[in-house]
């Protein structure tokens, strides 16, 4: 049955059927060919996902991101960072990396990050005469920091699938996110210096810098508040998401003074639509996950690995290779939901805790977002930079080295995860 599911899913996805529909088609094919799988059970699995209280956090983290990123905050952050690092070697690309890291604290979505920051930075890069393929490559990678720095929607999904604590995962995501930020900045600096890429030359306006710095502070404060609220049990993740949305609305209304009814309407629709996209994948993945468990696929894979792969580091390597491969083709939320039940028993067998596995999984699958053939941030930033995807891919290799190094650290050095 698992093979049939895989074949139908791949076939439908290849024919350009959206991932969620393709997963459901695969589930339906499995139910149609197996008498022991009633269709009602699949529907039950789907409906159960929309009755999950923790998942209510998703639309409110989305709303927080829409409210904060759509207004003056984005311009303020870019203004401060340009004044700080725009003159360094690779400075313009480093601004992309730092902006993504800061936006990571207000949004849990790499795609939203790539679109918002790309729209702000690409015109400036073009004006400087920056190589746009490199600009697209740096942002495609940097945007994925967004889903590692709290709040992170993939980490919420992982928590639900693994029963790990959302608070622990959010806290653990800080260090790998910062490692990626420093690594990507170093890569930008190195490429900028080696190729003598253009830098910002206009003199900094001190008054504007101070103003932008003040306006940027909420973006730094929000992730800190989220982590503190969760770590000290002040509120549940869902309540924290609602409070984050409240914070962003208050800040937009009082500090940025850019919260109009039209913007609020737009933000609610954007958040609702994005929630619909993610939740349909979650609903479909739940149906598939149930079928795979029914078919004992996770147990079979775990047994096979335990019998054939003896050492801990080989098991971790195997999991990473599988995730890197699947991440190139699978939608990230679907990959998290489908792979967690498969890898969790393996991780437990080698003494890796669920939090470390979650971080390893998200850092790993994030690489798939800027890897062809299905790289969402890669496509977005290439489109914004008006370059071919192939040109962007050629600029990615320093970032791959950084990302794989951080993945290696997260996978093999448990101390790299804050607890």
């Amino acid at each position, binding site marked *: 049955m698992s093979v049939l599911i895989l074949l139908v899913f791949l076939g439908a996805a290849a024919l350009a059927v*959206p991932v969620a529909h393709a997963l459901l088609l695969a589930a339906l094919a499995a139910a149609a060919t197996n008498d022991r799988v009633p269709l009602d059970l699949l529907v039950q699995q789907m409906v159960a996902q*929309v009755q999950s209280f923790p998942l209510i956090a998703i639309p409110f983290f989305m709303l927080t991101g829409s409210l904060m990123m759509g207004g003056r905050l984005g311009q303020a952050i870019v203004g401060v960072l340009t004044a700080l690092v725009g003159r360094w070697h690779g400075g313009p690309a480093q601004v992309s990396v730092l902006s993504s890291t800061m936006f990571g604290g207000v949004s849990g979505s790499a795609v939203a990050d790539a679109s918002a920051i790309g729209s702000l930075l690409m015109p400036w890069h073009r004006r400087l005469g920056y190589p746009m393929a490199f600009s697209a490559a740096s942002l495609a990678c940097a945007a994925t920091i967004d889903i590692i720095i709290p709040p992170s929607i993939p980490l919420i999904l992982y928590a639900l699938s693994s029963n790990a604590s959302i608070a622990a995962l959010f806290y653990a995501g800080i260090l790998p996110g910062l490692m990626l930020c420093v690594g990507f900045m170093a890569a930008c600096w190195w490429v900028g210096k080696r190729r003598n890429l253009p830098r910002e030359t206009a003199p900094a306006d001190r008054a504007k810098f101070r103003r932008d710095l003040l306006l940027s502070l909420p973006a730094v404060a929000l992730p800190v508040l989220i982590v503190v609220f969760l770590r000290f049990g002040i509120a549940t993740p*869902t309540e924290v998401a*609602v409070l984050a949305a409240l914070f962003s609305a208050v800040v937009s209304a009082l500090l940025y003074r850019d919260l109009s009814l039209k913007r609020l309407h737009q933000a609610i629709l954007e958040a609702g639509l994005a929630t619909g996209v*993610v939740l349909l994948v979650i609903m479909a993945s739940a149906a598939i996950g149930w079928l795979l468990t029914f078919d004992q696929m996770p147990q079979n894979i775990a047994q096979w690995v335990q019998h054939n792969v003896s050492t801990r580091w080989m098991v971790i390597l195997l999991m990473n290779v599988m995730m890197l491969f699947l991440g190139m083709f699978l939608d990230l939320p679907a990959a998290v939901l489908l792979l967690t039940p498969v890898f969790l028993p393996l991780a437990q067998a080698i003494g890796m805790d669920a939090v470390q596995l979650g971080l390893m999984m998200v850092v790993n699958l994030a690489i798939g977002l800027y890897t062809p053939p299905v790289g*969402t941030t890669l496509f*977005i930033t290439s*489109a914004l930079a008006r370059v071919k995807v192939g040109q962007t891919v050629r600029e990615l290799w320093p970032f791959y080295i950084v990302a794989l190094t951080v993945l290696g650290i997260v996978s093999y050095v448990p101390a790299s995860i804050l607890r």
Partner: protein
Amino acid sequence: MSTATAVVGRNAFERAVVLACGAVLWLTTCVIFVILATNTLLRYASGSSLQWANEVPELLFPWLVMAGVVLAAEKGAHIATVFLVDAVGAGLRRHIAVASWLGVAALYAVLVRATWGMLEIVHDERSPILQVPGSVTYACVMVGMVLIAALALLAAWRAWRGVRASDDAQEGTPAAQGSAQGSAQ
């Protein structure tokens, strides 16, 4: 994608779907927001909380989700992989688009039928405090599936005629509808 060149406006059905989904999103988001924010603040201000404060958001969440799912379907925002279909000729692409959309419509028709059959069973399941029947949530999901199926049929019809709605990001296959989206990633 180049199978379709003509662009047509949204029809009355699509406009109604967009309007209804927008209204549901507004209502559910605001109500859930107010209840959860109030409950959290109340807990710290007075040490007590509303008993039904978790139940109402749980009951409203499926409506928020399904409104988002249908709106995403209407706007072509569901994530898909297009590179293989983009590599084939325009004529074949059109046929793939029609077949894919019909497949999606059939899928949801089957799921609607299965959900319909469960309504009576889950009607007896009541929420703990407000005693709302479980069939309400299932009916909400079923209505969403009906609308997705209807939109898929419309998309198949448009792909067959070689036209696309003015709001679609791209035209043609289900793939074309949302290759660059996916806000959770």
